[in-house]
């Protein structure tokens, strides 16, 4: 399985999936007109990766700016997917990068992982990512 990179657009984020590093990065604005078309292929990719590569550690890096409701729901589904893999014994990290002082965005990250007990939530400063 090779790395996959989806460039960003005016309304969709850049998505980089690296199977060797067991990591997916999602950066930029996320208010797609068709969230399913954007995230369903990513979800399929992740499911295949977990089933074939069986990683012990997997990291989701989120450095997002504006996210609309549809985008948040899709990201929450992604977090639920990796949480289910964490329930199987894998170490799952969800890194949420925000600018220092951006309290609204920091609380949004907490909303994404609220109720998910098998992920390690790591809020970090955006410059550190």
């Amino acid at each position: 399985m090779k790395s996959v990179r989806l460039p960003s657009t005016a309304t969709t984020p850049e998505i980089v999936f690296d199977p060797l590093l067991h990591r997916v990065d999602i950066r930029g604005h996320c208010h797609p007109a068709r969230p399913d078309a954007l995230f369903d292929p990513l979800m399929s990719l992740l499911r295949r990766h977990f089933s074939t590569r069986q990683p012990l550690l997997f990291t989701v890096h989120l450095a997002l700016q504006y996210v609309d409701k549809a985008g948040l729901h899709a990201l929450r589904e992604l977090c639920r997917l990796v949480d289910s893999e964490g329930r199987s014994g894998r170490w799952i990290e969800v890194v949420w990068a925000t600018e220092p002082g951006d309290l609204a965005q920091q609380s949004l990250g907490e909303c994404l992982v609220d109720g998910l007990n098998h992920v390690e939530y790591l809020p970090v400063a955006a410059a550190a990512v």
Partner: protein
Amino acid sequence: MSNTSPAPAQAAPAAHRPMQRAQPATARHHASVGVAWPATVQVEGEPAMRAECRYAGTEGMAFTCARPLLVGTELVLWVGLPGGEDAEDDVWTEFSLRVIETMPATSGHGMTCVYRRMPAETMARLLVAYQAALAAAAAVVMPPPADAGVPRWPSMPAQPAAAAMPATPAMPPPAVRSAPPLPQAAVPAMAAPEPSLTTALTTGAMAVEWHLERLVACGPGAQPLMQHFGALDPALMQRLFQKAHDRLADIPLSPVVRRKLYACFVEMVRNVHQHAEALALDSPAGAAPPLTAVSLQLPTAGAASTAGGWVVTANVVSAQALPRLQALAAALQGLSAPALAQAYRAALDDTGVRPLQATTPGFGWLTLAREASAPLQVQCSVDPGTQAWAPAYLVVKAQV
């Protein structure tokens, strides 16, 4: 200053010579998209300068000139419409305009292109006026005025034609912008001039658009970063979002303020697109598209305000919707910070279909209230004009 109805047709001023064009002679008879027209631009107190005017389809009128103009500049644009096969037969029509946006010209000659957006229905009316002016010019040959060499403001004395028009270097044929054509339904066939066209232009969609512009006008201490006036569609919204992102990236703002301004801009544009109501006019063109005004503003240099910026939108709503919108605004104003956070979280988790007539703020409104640094300003007003169809307006201002 606002748009005026087209002035009576006049023969081309003798001092003006058309710019070289790549279009064939037959194209001169069509007020179509992409055709360049000779023009003259004059800002009050300054010499007139040559310009080239073209329609940009649904985006409105565009012209290029040699000197950059600032947003907000009020000017008079004289456009030469083809009255015959020769340039000397051009019919000059005057428009009073205000620059709302500038961009680098596509021709690569270092000129600035400015344009005025207007809805397709208004563009269609202007085309009717142009065609009427052509028909009138063909019927009557009017001698050029004594000072036809230079257009002038009514309060200013005429300037010598020779001194007012500095020589400009010869330019190669301009690149015709490949703009989409006007929808066929919006462009009426050649018809007799409407006797009440002037009245229609000042009381119809254009009057509403002027009112919307006034509603989002920058207050003291603010300047526009980008603005849009007119109908919205998904493709245009995408371009607006990209433009807002690019413009904000060029401004020295803190990343947090930049993100919040962008978030407010997107939410408010989507809100007006979804909820702006079409203004039904008693006109041959039928119902006009929903008219909206969006303005992204920053503090002027030296302004005392410490705000990162403002996003202001205005759109037409029905008078019946005012009580619901006022109740929604009151609900937003009454939310404390903890209540706002709780309501936001509840709206985020809600996957149901929200009723259109809901009186409580939805996720979009709550996002706005969350990102803004001050309580949202939501104003509902009725146009106090004398027209029987006077619409109601919703103005939303978010400060970041």
